[in-house]
């Protein structure tokens, strides 16, 4: 159980955050420079907050009011640095065993051997870090942090030093390793997908503040704001104007159309008419209406609109289409209004490659408003 509140002033930047987590793995996500790494460094005792309090599993690491500031070595944690910070002048075995003190040399060697085996680094003990691949280096860094049996593991962008295909493969492995070792972990990443896959709780940072802290499922479905949605990489984040708001529905005006959306379920959001409002529509929930089945049924097809496909990208299993509405006026997202995702099968059956003009509908539940 981790509780943290801290203020840190740096040139051109102020970090002011507070959050708590009961979950095992916490992911801090957000754009570069948002303060995630600074938070991690304060957690580790490598940086001192100007004010605040940090408590991990009942142990007070830092308390500016009480004058408590445990040095890093008293905090019993493991830290995996961005770029790994492996000691270039030591072998893999010496790197992994660097933090081990006490016990006989044999015991330490045994422990090192154990960690090396568990992380699949067998055979590399005598190598130097420079001779290893990126993935191997990452595991050595992890091994070094875990060998000391820390109370909590901190990871700073553990995968960003790797190239994209490797990153995906190792993400799963890293997640497995963290869970197998069973240690609480705090990890920092700028990649939302990574945060979502690895973290039980996701804490979103922007410009030195926490803009949302939630268990991951909640975050996925209920981003707290437009900023969070953007950080999550959600597509079709749009702006409209409120026509009428009630506890479960919001009617809004967008691109000359009247849309009906569900209201934010976790809060009573009742903006007055004519207020600007942000909302998003998931690309995979936009339905293209088949042309061979007569006129669309209003019960079935809500939020009807029509437009022309102006761009498309083939992703193998899906197609991403960009559609410009027939409505007059400039498109909402550059030269298109909506991004739509269709499975390959649908693309082929509907012959979208040839037929570019479509009517579409969006269920009101698929239009989610973003408060403030």
């Amino acid at each position, binding site marked *: 159980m981790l509780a943290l509140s801290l203020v840190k002033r740096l040139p051109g930047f102020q970090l002011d955050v507070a959050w708590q987590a009961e979950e095992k793995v916490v992911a801090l996500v957000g754009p570069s420079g948002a303060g995630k790494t600074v938070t991690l460094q304060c957690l*580790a*005792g*490598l940086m001192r907050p100007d004010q605040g309090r940090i408590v991990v599993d009942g142990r007070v690491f830092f308390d500016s009011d009480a004058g408590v500031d445990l*040095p*890093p*070595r008293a905090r019993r*944690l*493991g*830290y995996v*640095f961005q*770029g790994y*910070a492996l*000691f*270039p*002048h030591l072998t893999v075995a010496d790197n992994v065993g*660097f*933090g081990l*003190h006490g016990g006989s040399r044999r015991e330490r060697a045994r422990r090192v051997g154990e960690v090396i085996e568990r992380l699949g680094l067998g055979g590399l003990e005598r190598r130097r870090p420079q001779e290893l691949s990126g993935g191997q280096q990452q595991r050595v860094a992890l091994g*070094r*942090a875990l060998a*000391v049996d820390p109370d909590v593991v901190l990871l700073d962008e553990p995968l960003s030093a790797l190239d994209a295909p490797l990153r995906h493969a190792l993400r799963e492995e890293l997640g497995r390793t963290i869970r197998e070792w069973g240690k609480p972990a705090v990890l920092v990443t700028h990649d939302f997908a990574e945060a979502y896959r690895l973290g039980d709780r996701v804490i979103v940072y922007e410009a030195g503040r926490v803009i949302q802290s939630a268990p991951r499922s909640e975050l996925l479905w209920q981003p707290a704001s437009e900023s969070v949605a953007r950080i999550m990489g959600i597509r079709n984040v749009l702006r409209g104007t409120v026509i009428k708001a009630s506890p479960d529905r919001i009617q809004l005006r967008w691109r000359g159309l009247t849309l009906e959306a569900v209201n934010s379920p976790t809060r009573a959001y009742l903006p007055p008419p004519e207020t600007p409002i942000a909302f998003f529509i998931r690309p995979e929930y936009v339905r293209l209406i088949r042309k061979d089945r007569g006129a669309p049924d209003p019960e079935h097809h809500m939020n009807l609109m029509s437009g022309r496909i102006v761009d498309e990208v083939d992703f193998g299993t899906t197609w991403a289409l960009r559609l410009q509405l027939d409505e007059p006026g400039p498109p909402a997202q550059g030269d298109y209004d909506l991004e739509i995702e269709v499975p390959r099968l649908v693309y082929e059956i509907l012959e979208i490659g040839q037929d570019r003009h479509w009517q579409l509908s969006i269920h009101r539940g698929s239009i989610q408003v973003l408060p403030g």
Partner: protein
Amino acid sequence: MELFPVRLSLQVAIIATAITLVLGVPIAWVLARRRFPGRQVLETLVVLPLILPPTVLGYYLLLLIGRRGPVGTVLAAAGIELAFTWRAAVLAAAVGSIALVIKASQAGFEAVDQRLEQAARTLGRSELSIFWSVTLPLAWRAVLAGGVLAFCRAMGEFGITLMVAGSIPGRTQTLPLAIYDRVQANQMNEANALALIAVAVVALLVFGVSRLARLRY
């Protein structure tokens, strides 16, 4: 030919280099890694011996350690002779060359990635342990370079030595002082021979050190 100046200079240079390393490396580390008030003062003090003319430096040093100087009187009371002995030659050589050790080592320490030191901190090491097991092993070449420079400087130390130790043949006349003396007395053969020995010593050292530096890593 009298080889005393050669022996004396070698011994003086070895001891002086050892002193500059023992004192200079920690100072270099402090300058590389710590911010503190008075830091500028320390930086200035370090390079001062490089700027001041050696005889001037020697004069001030003599005022300090001579029979009437503050340090000199204390040493005399303790029965220790410093000025006008080979020990003063060591002092002169060390003062003249410590800046080289400090600057070279400081650059070496600054080049060590601080995250490695941070990693060591998270792994439970004390600051001293971090210095010995991380910082120094990664900067040893710079420290070695500083040491070599200091040794060469110590072998060639002239002006300061002349003042605080004197050019007393058979007692404090180091190799550079001996060469100078022979040149002034127009004993060119001896002067050339001594100069050749000086060159040979340094060449041997540089060769040996570069072999050493290529090993490992």
